[in-house]
């Protein structure tokens, strides 16, 4: 047997303390090794202040002379233990935070250089077993008690002293409540958790010790129980045990053999039955058992000691020696039973209970059964106040970051190459009403059909409002600007006008008035409305037409039972205060806020999104309004501008888009085609030029209207133009034949013939170009794709999806079918190495051509006009995705984040 320092204690090894109070008390004086390290920097100031300034010095190798600041004063830092001692500072306890390889050296230093050292707490985890052995040997010879390793230290609740790690957390006074229970825990986390649990039975703690669960536990259960028996403050002991090691068996045998007297009850928890079959430790290094020290064996040690089986809450049976409980949640109840049996009272009235009390809940619409459908409850102090403050924050909260080439709104699914917006694939959007899609882009939820009965009028009114800018677009077009230019001119001219300002300020004000009060429900509440009527909204002029539209919208709201607290508030406000604020602007803000409310209160959108929603929709309205080719001859455009017949406001948005674009009513399934086309083109991810244009403008801190212009300026003939090139190509191939002259099944053969001829012509052109040394020869538009290629027969899944969807709706586009013949014939004549895919641009081109084919054949539309319409249709779709990107970037981005670093920029001479 090694020669250890002995004293008059019943152990074959050295134990210094007589009572638990000796481990940590108000007289303890502490030096922290690696005091300025990461973990100690956070924990030591709290411990020091809580304990009444018991840290007399710290050691940080190479940093002598520094200080650690704490709320209760600075702690001097020295370069070594010798320097501390030479400075005349007396201390009896060392705490070690050093990395594993340095721990045993630090223990040696403390023992060698401080003659007064009595206790060492090792917080460090992952100490090697070998070093742990050295520490044991050295400290046993020296006569020093060691707690740990991997320990969160020890706390004396009566003296309000905590030594070592973060026992009790960052607010130890919350958990460490004075009482009569001592805790010995293999788990640092459970040391604190158990102190919380026993409060629910009215018990506090005397001393709490986190023993660690390494292979060698330096302050084991035997010495802890010995010290607990001698501690007048302690009336019971709670023990949390994991598998591995015979510490508990030794302790109980020593008591049973009379090696030391132990009269106090023990409540024991043993966990880890599942570790029996592990071949390596998980969690705690030493919690890996052999045959005789696994969880089941340990359960038996305790059960034999107590003389009663595991505690059963349904039929509680305990002994005066204590009881073993199945889980830590049974500790409070079992403790109360045991103390009752002993005639001991609790330390105080029970605080709280351990029932399930969720603080945050959102079922997201799932219909849980009763036992799972928990409602949130008020949290315990001080968390209730923190939650209340957090709940006052409106909408989603994002942390800002650089958003260059990054989007939180759209992404390309790498497997399918289909873009998703707010998690929804474009292909799933295709059939949605386009008006609903414009709202989805900002709100991340689709409005219902009933909601669209009032939202469509708002969207269409924005078109009407947008017509005021048409002179700018006419001038620009006259000067040869392309659609992005002439429509963009009107967009730019809208600046940050009175309407935008009013919509933003009205929404913001209503959110401020109602958000915290009404929660998620927007049902009408006259009392609440009445209480808000004293508010003041910004003032703007109004027109007679505005008032007519206001009345119209009010009647529509009633007709479709779409009134809500905001719209009713507006009515009451206008009635009370007159028309100093534009009633229509107020009402539109209210309608849009109602549409936003669910997304806002469910924190899927930010307050900024809700406030700016009207601006995005108004800009969409400007784009539609200023796309008109010839306003004087377009009666549909005029009817939207004049609103002499208000029913034009009830149309689906895409219907008005159609009529303004084509100057006629849609026939048959044309609406379906155009609607699909718009939805398909709303985005192609954040890497597109259009998205980048918008995002870079936001990054430069511009108005939303300028950001929209940014998107438009970044489009060009390479976008819609590609569609137009295809249109030009198709017009050329179908010079001699009208594919709509006969039913489709009668012209199918013709289409193949045209394709064969076209393929042959192209092959001839290609050969000529190559022999002339022209390598950059023209490609046939709308065929092939950088991703969907390389197979014998290639398919663009997006085009395939839409083509199938059209067929299901009895729509067969002969131009698209021609393309499918063409790619096969190109392969047959050897012009291509395999059968190219027909890509999604073909859908855009062929749908476009189909829509104005009749007018083209009747010479009612010029070539330039066709080009403009194709380009404009692209802009209509893309403006929706732009709103999503702009909103996202405004929420998350930082100023100038789209700038390209100099290191990524190249130069060519």
């Amino acid at each position: 047997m090694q020669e250890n320092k002995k004293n008059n204690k019943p152990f074959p090894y050295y134990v210094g303390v007589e009572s638990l109070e000796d481990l940590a008390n108000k007289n303890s004086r502490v030096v922290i090794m690696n005091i300025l390290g990461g973990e100690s920097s956070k924990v030591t100031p709290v411990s020091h202040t809580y304990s009444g300034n018991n840290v007399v010095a710290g050691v940080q190798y190479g940093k002598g002379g520094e200080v650690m600041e704490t709320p209760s004063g600075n702690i001097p830092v020295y370069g070594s233990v010798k320097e501390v001692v030479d400075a005349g500072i007396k201390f009896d306890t060392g705490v070690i935070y050093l990395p594993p390889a340095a721990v045993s050296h630090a223990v040696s230093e403390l023992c060698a250089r401080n003659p007064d050292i009595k206790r060492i707490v090792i917080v460090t985890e992952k100490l090697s077993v070998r070093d742990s052995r050295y520490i044991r040997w050295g400290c046993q010879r020296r006569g020093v008690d060691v707690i740990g390793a991997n320990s969160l230290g020890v706390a004396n609740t009566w003296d309000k002293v905590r030594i070592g790690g973060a026992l009790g957390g960052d607010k130890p006074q919350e958990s460490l409540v004075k009482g009569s229970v001592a805790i010995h825990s293999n788990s640092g986390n459970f040391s604190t958790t158990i102190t919380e649990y026993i409060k629910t039975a009215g018990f506090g703690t005397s001393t709490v010790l986190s023993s660690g669960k390494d292979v060698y536990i330096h302050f084991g259960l035997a010495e802890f129980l010995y010290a607990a028996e001698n501690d007048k403050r302690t009336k019971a002991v709670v023990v949390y045990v994991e598998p591995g090691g015979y510490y508990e068996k030794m302790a109980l045998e020593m008591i049973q053999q009379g090696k030391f007297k132990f009269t106090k009850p023990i409540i024991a928890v043993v966990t880890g039955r599942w570790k029996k079959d592990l071949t390596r430790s998980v969690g705690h290094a030493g919690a890996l058992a052999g045959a005789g020290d696994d969880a089941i064996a340990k359960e038996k040690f305790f059960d034999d000691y107590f003389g009663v089986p595991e505690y059963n809450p349904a039929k509680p049976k305990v002994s005066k020696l204590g009881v073993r409980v199945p889980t830590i949640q049974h500790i409070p109840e079992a403790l109360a039973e045991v103390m009752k049996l002993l005639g001991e009272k609790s330390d105080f009235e029970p605080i709280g209970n351990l029932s399930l009390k969720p603080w945050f809940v959102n079922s997201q619409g799932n219909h849980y059964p009763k036992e799972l459908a928990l409602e949130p409850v008020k949290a315990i102090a001080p968390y209730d106040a923190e939650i209340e403050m957090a709940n006052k924050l409106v909408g989603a909260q994002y942390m800002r970051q650089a958003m260059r080439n990054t989007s939180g709104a759209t992404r390309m699914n790498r497997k399918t190459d289909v873009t998703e917006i707010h998690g929804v694939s474009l292909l799933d959007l295709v059939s949605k009403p386009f008006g609903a899609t414009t709202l989805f882009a900002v709100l991340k939820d689709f409005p219902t059909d009933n909601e669209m009965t009032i939202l469509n009028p708002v969207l269409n009114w924005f078109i009407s409002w947008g017509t005021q800018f048409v002179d700018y677009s006419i001038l620009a077009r006259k000067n040869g600007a392309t659609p992005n230019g002439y429509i963009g001119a009107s967009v730019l001219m809208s600046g940050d006008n009175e309407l935008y300002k009013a919509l933003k300020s009205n929404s913001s004000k209503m959110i401020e008035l109602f958000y915290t009060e009404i929660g998620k429900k927007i049902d009408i509440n006259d009392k609440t409305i009445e209480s808000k009527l004293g508010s003041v909204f910004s003032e703007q002029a109004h027109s007679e037409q505005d008032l007519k539209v206001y009345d119209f919208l009010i009647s529509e709201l009633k007709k479709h039972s779409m009134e809500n607290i905001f719209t009713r508030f507006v009515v009451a406000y206008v009635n009370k205060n007159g028309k100093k604020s534009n009633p229509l602007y107020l009402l539109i803000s209210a309608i849009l806020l109602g549409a936003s409310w669910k997304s806002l209160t469910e924190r899927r959108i930010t307050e900024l999104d809700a406030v700016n929603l009207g601006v995005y929709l108004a800009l969409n309205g400007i784009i539609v309004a200023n796309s008109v080719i010839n306003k004087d001859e377009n009666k549909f455009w005029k009817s939207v501008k004049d609103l002499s017949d208000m029913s034009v406001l009830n149309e689906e948005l895409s219907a008005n888009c159609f009529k303004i674009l084509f100057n006629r009513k849609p026939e048959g399934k044309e609406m379906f085609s155009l609607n699909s086309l718009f939805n398909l083109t709303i985005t192609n991810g954040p890497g597109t030029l259009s998205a980048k244009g918008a995002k870079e403008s936001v990054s430069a801190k511009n108005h939303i209207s300028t950001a929209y212009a940014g998107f438009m300026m970044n489009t060009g003939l390479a976008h819609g133009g590609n569609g137009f090139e295809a249109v030009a190509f198709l017009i050329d191939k179908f010079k001699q034949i009208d594919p709509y002259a006969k039913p489709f099944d009668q012209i199918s053969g013709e289409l193949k013939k045209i394709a064969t001829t076209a393929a042959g012509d192209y092959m001839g052109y290609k050969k000529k170009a190559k022999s002339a040394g022209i390598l950059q020869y023209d490609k046939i538009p709308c065929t092939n794709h950088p991703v969907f290629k390389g197979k014998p027969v290639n398919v663009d899944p997006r085009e395939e999806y839409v083509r199938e969807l059209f067929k299901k709706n009895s729509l067969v586009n002969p131009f698209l079918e021609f393309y499918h013949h063409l790619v096969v014939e190109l392969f047959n004549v050897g012009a291509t190495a395999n059968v190219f895919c027909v890509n999604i641009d073909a859908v855009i081109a062929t749908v476009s051509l189909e829509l104005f084919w009749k007018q083209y054949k009747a010479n009612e539309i010029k070539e330039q006009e066709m080009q403009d319409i194709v380009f404009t249709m692209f802009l209509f779709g893309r403006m929706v995705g732009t709103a999503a990107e702009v909103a996202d970037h405004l929420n998350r981005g930082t100023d100038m984040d789209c700038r390209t670093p100099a290191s990524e920029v190249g130069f060519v001479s």
Partner: protein
Amino acid sequence: MQLTGLKYGKRILEMVEFPHSPVLTEEASIEEVSALIAAHGGKCVIKPFFTGGIGKKGKAGLVRIAKSVHEAMEAKKDLYFAKHHQGNHVVQANGVTFEGFIASDAEIYVSISASTIHRQPVMTLILEGGVEVEDVSPDKKREIVFNPITGIKSYHITEALTELDCPQDYISALVAYLPKLWQAYDTYGLITLEINPIRIAKIKGRAVPYACDIKASFDQDNPGWKRLGFPSEIFSTDITDFEAEINTLRTYQGQSDVTELNVDGTILPFIFGGGANSAATEVLGQRAIISSDFGGNPPYDKMKSIADITFKHWLAKTNVVLLIGGKANNTDIFVTFKGIFDSLKEHIHLNPNIHVVVGRGGPNLIRGMVYARDVLDNMKVPYQFFGYDSSMVGVLEHTIKLDDWIIENKENNKKVG
């Protein structure tokens, strides 16, 4: 980190010049095996080779003695992919060793292991080989407690063997060699070293002990084992790809311990703290895909990397993502939650239908919960967060009930419009 058998274990012995039976691997030629048999009294021993550790129970029935090359090759065929059951695990061999048969009328069991009773290593000696030490009566074994700094000395061995009535000429052989095992134990970061059996052969009239099998477990916190130059794959089947990936993040800053429990499980638990790990894994049972301990205040990058790896491997088959722990002492809840939920944002496309349950306490708790709430609301993922004033076991049992409900309603989960 464990190894069994002389294929690699012999390296430990060779480093301290402890004799062992000669070993050939499954790649040995017929000529080599024939020579081995001839050099060892016409016999050789064939054993299946298991990588990693195979636990405490013996390989009974999996050791063959061959008297000819033909028998040896037949044994090789039989044992090459032999399966061994150990608790819930089935391990499969991948190869065999051919070992020289050591003729002896004496077998010894010796081990050096960390004793929690003495809180230092102890040596155990039994004058019988091939035994399970727990099954041997106390009078037939000796436990030597020695100075852990100066190590095992010859006199320790002499005294113990004499008490066991060991034949004298065996004592002198063992006294010369057994202390070398301490050198190996101390130098190479071992926690357990077991030689079972040592067979004592007579070589030119002298008794020489030969290690005929070896079992070793290494302390993963002691880099001494690296000096042995083992190829990394010998410990690799001890851990799965997922576990290996997580292990690359192992630092002393915060835990990153995982074990794959059930690849068909439905609950993906992020557990904080060794105590919570023990308790939660027990309660969750087979539903838990993994057992984990991510406590100890890991920094953001580490937590995010852990979550990335975990979600990449398991999110697709998960019903409930569970974050569970007691009231943390120093783990910053906001930092760890941000790491996990930032990762979830990037991986949610793998399985948008998960539910999330949190049961936690500690510093920055509300800040962490609010962050998680905002992320989950944005993704429309349902959640329930409990503070430390709800019983941890209660939260675990609630999670199980939720999992049951999800399984039952997987096809029919209804949502309000």
